[in-house]
């Protein structure tokens, strides 16, 4: 009697093989890594020093008195360097006098080591460069042309550089 019952049950199960697996699901991950934001800091001002009326003074970007910025970001990503509208004059600190200032095709430079210019460029145009180990150093020189009757005293101005990732 018991043997007959077991045979019937086994046959019934085999007759319905498709009851399982009418639905299926699986998952995949979505992944990303957010990199460090880019930053820029002023390492050194552009110093023309003592200038003589009527005598133009030029500071090359590789000179020790050149202005220097430090850019910090992620890896070897590409960035743009934009000086915007460069100042055309330095302003007397105590009067309304101004000292003409200009920048040439090689007045700016970049390098991967502080104090060392690898490549020069024209600061009047946006420049693209790659970080190296997350770092880049930018240098700025220029030329002041005091008039023969230039008022004595201290003159100063501001040069602003904007840095941004390109996404490359």
């Amino acid at each position: 009697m018991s043997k007959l019952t077991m045979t019937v049950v086994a046959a019934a199960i085999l007759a319905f093989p498709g009851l399982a697996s009418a639905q299926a699901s699986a998952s995949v991950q979505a992944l990303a890594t957010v990199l460090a934001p880019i930053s820029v800091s002023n390492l050194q001002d552009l110093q023309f020093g003592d200038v003589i009326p009527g005598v133009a003074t030029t500071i090359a970007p590789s000179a020790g008195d050149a202005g220097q910025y430090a850019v910090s970001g992620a890896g070897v990503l590409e960035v743009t360097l934009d000086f915007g509208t460069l100042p055309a004059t330095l302003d007397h600190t105590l009067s309304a006098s101004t000292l003409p200032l200009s920048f040439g095709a090689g007045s700016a430079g970049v390098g991967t080591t502080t104090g060392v210019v690898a490549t020069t460029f024209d600061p009047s145009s946006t420049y693209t460069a790659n970080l190296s180990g997350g770092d880049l150093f930018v240098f700025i020189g220029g030329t002041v042309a005091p008039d023969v009757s230039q008022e004595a005293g201290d003159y100063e101005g501001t040069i602003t550089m904007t840095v941004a990732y390109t996404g490359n």
Partner: protein
Amino acid sequence: MIRSAIRLVLLTMLVGGGSLEAQGPPGPRPPGGGRPLRVDAQQALDFGELLGGLPQVVPANDPINAGRMQVSGQGGSDVLVSFLLPTALDGPGNAAVPLVFGPGAAGYSATQDIDGQLAFDPSISNVFTLPQNGRGTLYLGGTAIPPAQAVVGSYAATITLTISYVGN
């Protein structure tokens, strides 16, 4: 006498296989026949390195970064495909990177041809017909939109695909 009676009954049951199935009310045969459905996760959706403020798009036909899942079942059957999509990637602390899946962010191919996929909106359930070999591939892209001040670090989320037979 008794022994002979038992043997006769056993023979009858084995020959009349159809009558065994009829013993209880038969369950509905699953659409598409008896082959079980299956989903295999093959590749994560990888947005790679993100920069704060810069959206990153992964198209569904990106062979390296698009998510990929293979579905299999009864050849020629219609299957309902549904994605459970995250709204953001989760990162360090409570940091999140929002995700967007547009109308063409997903694709289906019956021939494993990533460039020949049929684009569709993964936020809506869709019905596809499995080819005769019973295998199809689903691809998923998307857009990650890191905030301008996104927290640095690794981010992840889970995408789940569910498929089921529909009546053919």
